[in-house]
């Protein structure tokens, strides 16, 4: 199966480990990601103000690119891109007056966009199209005495129109990990905000949040926190450096993308999983657990 794929900016830089591991894992599962030609920034946040149509053009232009390829679906990895593209599409589909205005503003585009591209996230692809049973069949490496704390963050779950699972008690990641033979802890912070973009000008707020989230995962016996969003990954992983300065007793945990765990389970080459880009080096722990 070939799928149109929207990477977004961060998947090409800080989160290259997410992109590379996702491509490798999907290849094992028989899916080829075809990067969208001429993709542009999605805007990263969906515009919430009622009169702000102009910021909805960027995500919609990407969906026009999908139509130009003769495709009607677009898969994303980044939770922020997913949420922004998905919500912009729902908006255009529902509101004809705004849709007409937006198409007028994009008069050089050859396609009049009607809201007919399906935006979906890689986790939906894994659950709904490939299926956890199929994923389980590809497992080559056993995880023994290894527990992860699944962390969803906000934008894959909220608001309701963009949610890929139950908003209050999602189980998608748990089910995925169970199919890989990886134990999970019952993590109450799994859908709580990491502080998001406050990491730019309110580092203390994010430090406090990361301390609470990572510390609790550790208390529950998790060996690592596993996430899906590149901004959550940065805040939970990279900001541990600042957490240690503020809380000297803090021990920390590695933070990985779920696709890196899948790659380990599938026995994929370490090169494609790019642990060098995770700030807290997970390799000593993985070697200790005989996973590398």
């Amino acid at each position, binding site marked *: 199966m070939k799928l149109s794929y929207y990477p977004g900016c961060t998947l090409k*830089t800080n989160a290259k480990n997410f992109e590379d591991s996702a491509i490798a894992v999907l290849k094992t599962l028989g899916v080829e990601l075809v990067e969208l030609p001429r993709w542009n920034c999605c805007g990263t946040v969906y515009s*919430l*103000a*009622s*009169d702000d149509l102009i910021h909805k053009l960027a995500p919609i232009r990407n969906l026009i690119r999908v139509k130009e390829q003769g495709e009607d679906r677009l898969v994303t990895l980044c939770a922020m891109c997913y949420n922004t593209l998905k919500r912009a599409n729902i908006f255009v589909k529902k509101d004809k007056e705004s849709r007409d205005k937006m198409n007028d503003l994009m008069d050089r585009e050859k396609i009049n966009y009607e809201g007919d591209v399906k935006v979906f996230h890689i986790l939906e692809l894994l659950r709904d199209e490939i299926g956890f049973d199929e994923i389980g069949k590809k497992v080559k490496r056993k995880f023994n005495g290894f527990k992860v704390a699944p962390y969803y963050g906000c934008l894959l779950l*909220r*608001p309701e129109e963009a949610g890929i699972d139950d908003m209050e008690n999602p189980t998608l990641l748990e089910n995925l990990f169970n199919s890989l033979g990886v134990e999970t802890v019952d993590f109450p912070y799994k859908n709580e*905000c990491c502080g998001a973009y406050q990491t730019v000008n309110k580092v203390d707020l994010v430090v406090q949040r990361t301390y609470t989230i990572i510390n609790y995962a550790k208390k529950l016996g998790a060996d690592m926190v596993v996430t899906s969003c590149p*901004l959550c990954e940065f805040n939970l992983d990279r900001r541990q450096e600042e957490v240690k300065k503020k809380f000297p007793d803090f021990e920390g945990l590695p933070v990985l993308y779920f696709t890196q765990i899948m790659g380990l389970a599938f026995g994929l080459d370490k090169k494609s999983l790019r642990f060098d880009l995770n700030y807290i080096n997970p390799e000593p722990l993985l070697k200790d657990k005989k996973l590398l």
Partner: protein
Amino acid sequence: MQDIIDKVSELSEQNLYSCYQCGKCSGGCPSVSEMDLLPNQVIRLLQLGMPDDASNANTMWICASCFTCTVRCPKGVDIAKVMEALRQISLRKNVDYVEVREISAKEISILPQIALVSNFRKQTA
């Protein structure tokens, strides 16, 4: 004062008077410890015709649009949109909340683009 409250309603497309002050938004908000006023108190001040008191609090700038309040409100008020409306009213006076020049070169070099772009989208004019 009524003009500003009408503008909040228009930009957020929310009926502020639907809120009956149950406090679920503030109960679920992960950032209340940093806020001058709780989210439900901001709504209450708007209901009472005191928008300046609502916008002088740091609440709207602490909110990172995680939508926990939005999905939990039993009256269907999208509080994240109300916070956005308050931010927009402030930013549209052409005043940045974040001083981009104050971010250190080291921070710029480690921050992912999604952090910078979303921060500037939400907090600069």
